């Protein structure tokens, strides 16, 4: 039982982390065609926000709860800055946004190294997150459950935003047909900015969860970003359900492969599996049907 339960539960938690990271990526990729390689550094910004919050709010029980909204805003503002300063100048050049954000990612990583040092900083776990719950003889840490809870909340929040608010309707209109939405009076520029803020903010929240599991680290973003991108690629564009399924699939499959082989072989095989999967569904799990010519 244990050989099955352990990777399943750990993989679900990893999948939840990947989901939070991938939600923002899928959102900006689907809506604006922007591939934000600096997204991992927004995750890192969230983690450092959690660390800094603990310097101010010394009560560990409370500090994480304070850190969550703060991290959302900090990472969101970073994303907004990136959008206004750089991305907005290069719409419809998706591969170029990819390269520019690689540059931004390098800058932010070096900045974190210079400000916080190359060594990671520990983040204290609040008392109510310590301990585990027994699942079929496996001790499942509360921290992993907390990550899954956060991911579900982020997903529900984003889903509600897209489905029930006027802003969400504008996003969906922009995703489906940018020019037509513009013609109907939607300010796609404003929509893009809010989207970037929300997407980056979600990465900030993911960063707090990462900080609880592994502390902060200037290279933290690079650890997750490639897997998060594989999730987006496997899930398909602009489709939340694809992202959700792909995130948990990648997380759980990686956990099982890690358990059987080694973490490096797991990474290689997960990559191979995604390429094989793309043979069956080249546009990812779910696709928006279009008659456009590429």
């Amino acid at each position, binding site marked *: 039982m244990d050989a099955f339960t352990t990777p399943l539960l750990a993989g679900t938690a990893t999948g939840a982390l990947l989901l939070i990271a991938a939600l923002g990526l899928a959102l900006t990729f689907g809506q604006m065609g922007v*591939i934000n390689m600096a997204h991992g550094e927004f995750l890192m910004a969230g983690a450092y926000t959690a660390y800094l919050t603990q310097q101010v709010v010394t009560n560990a029980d409370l500090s994480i709860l304070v850190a969550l909204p703060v991290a959302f805003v900090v990472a969101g503002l970073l994303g907004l800055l990136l959008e206004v300063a750089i991305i907005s100048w290069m719409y419809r050049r998706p591969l170029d946004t990819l390269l520019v954000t690689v540059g931004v990612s*390098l800058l932010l990583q*070096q900045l974190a190294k210079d400000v916080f040092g190359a060594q990671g900083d520990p983040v204290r776990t609040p008392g109510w997150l310590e301990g585990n719950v027994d699942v079929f003889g496996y001790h499942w840490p509360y921290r992993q459950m907390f990550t899954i809870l956060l991911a579900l909340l982020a997903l529900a929040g984003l889903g509600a935003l897209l489905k029930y608010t006027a802003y969400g309707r504008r996003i969906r209109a922009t995703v489906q047909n940018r020019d037509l939405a513009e013609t109907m009076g939607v300010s796609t520029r404003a929509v893009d900015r809010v989207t970037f803020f929300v997407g980056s903010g979600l990465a900030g929240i993911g960063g707090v969860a990462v900080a609880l599991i592994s502390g902060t680290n200037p290279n933290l973003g690079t650890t997750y970003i*490639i897997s998060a991108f*594989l999730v987006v690629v496997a899930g398909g564009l602009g489709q939340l359900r694809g992202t959700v399924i792909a995130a948990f699939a990648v997380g759980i499959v990686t956990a099982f492969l890690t358990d059987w082989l080694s973490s*490096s072989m797991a990474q290689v095989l997960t990559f191979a599996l995604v390429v094989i999967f793309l043979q069956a569904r080249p546009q990812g799990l779910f696709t928006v049907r279009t008659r456009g010519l590429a």
Partner: protein
Amino acid sequence: MTVLLKHARSWGPLLAIAVLAVVLLVVAPAVLSPFRLNNLGKYVCWAIAGVGIGLAWGRGGMLVMGQGVFFGLGGYAMAMHLKLEAAMASGGPDAIPDFMVLYGDATMPGWWEPFRSGAFTLFAIVAVPAVAAAILGYAIFKRRVKGAYFAILTQALAVAFATLLIATIKQTGGFNGLNQFTQFFGYNLYDPVNKKMIYSIAAIVLIACLVVVWQLYRSRFGELLVAVRDGEERVRFLGHDPANIKLVAFVLAAVMASIGGALFAPITGIISPSDVDATASILLIAGVALGGRALLLGPALGALAVGYGRTYLSESFPDQWTYFLGLLFIVVILFFPSGLGSVWSQVTSRLRKEGTA
């Protein structure tokens, strides 16, 4: 007159290649110290990979973010041979590399055995990346995976490859990579004359790659490649299979990267995961983007410039080098998307437009 101009246009690039050849093969060895010349050799290896990236990305529109993998396949193939040469020189025909003794069981994995042969090594340097790129490219292009999907997949490949190298410490030297070579196909690597010889080989290979690519760009294949980049569906409607055209460019780029890596190992004396991982691949891209990805000489000159800048800046400002690299990406892509090499043609075409208006 017009005939002369036409000739100038088609033979001009060849002239530029000739100038570069004279600079690399005659001027540089005469004026540079052996140490600096060896450094230049390192940049030349990156430039060889850069020419391939220019072919795949600049002309073919395939942003290969994991070219370090192919650089590494060639680099490690060569390094394995050099390692075995060094071992055999000091310990007889059955000797095995020192690190394998150091890390444990003192048995050599079977797949190292063929690399005792120099001829097999040279064959593997071309064949292994070609086969790997053909399989990967076939899987990706036939299913019409492209654009950002392709870029991200190749970068994931580079991450996976570097992780694998670090993990298999007993077979590949792990994080430290392969180093401490003493021989190069029978020549003593400590002899400065031989070092100069390897530099010259690298420079000649770079010039040869440029001539090959120049010829390719003039050919029907070159035109089809650009057509695929600019309108893949239209090429398909005209009866060509874009996947095959892209595959050829991708495989050629992989082979060039591999040859660059194979020369990199004896020139620098080391190949390690940090020479082939995602960051190393991005550095290769940086040179090509800086020089001008769609130009003939742009990728090579850009790679040389980035190589020089990397050495110069990390000597003068060891910690700030990353800032320069980051800013380079942002400024070049934002303001000169076709690279610095095309600034001149951008300016002249704007002037010409204003002149006719």
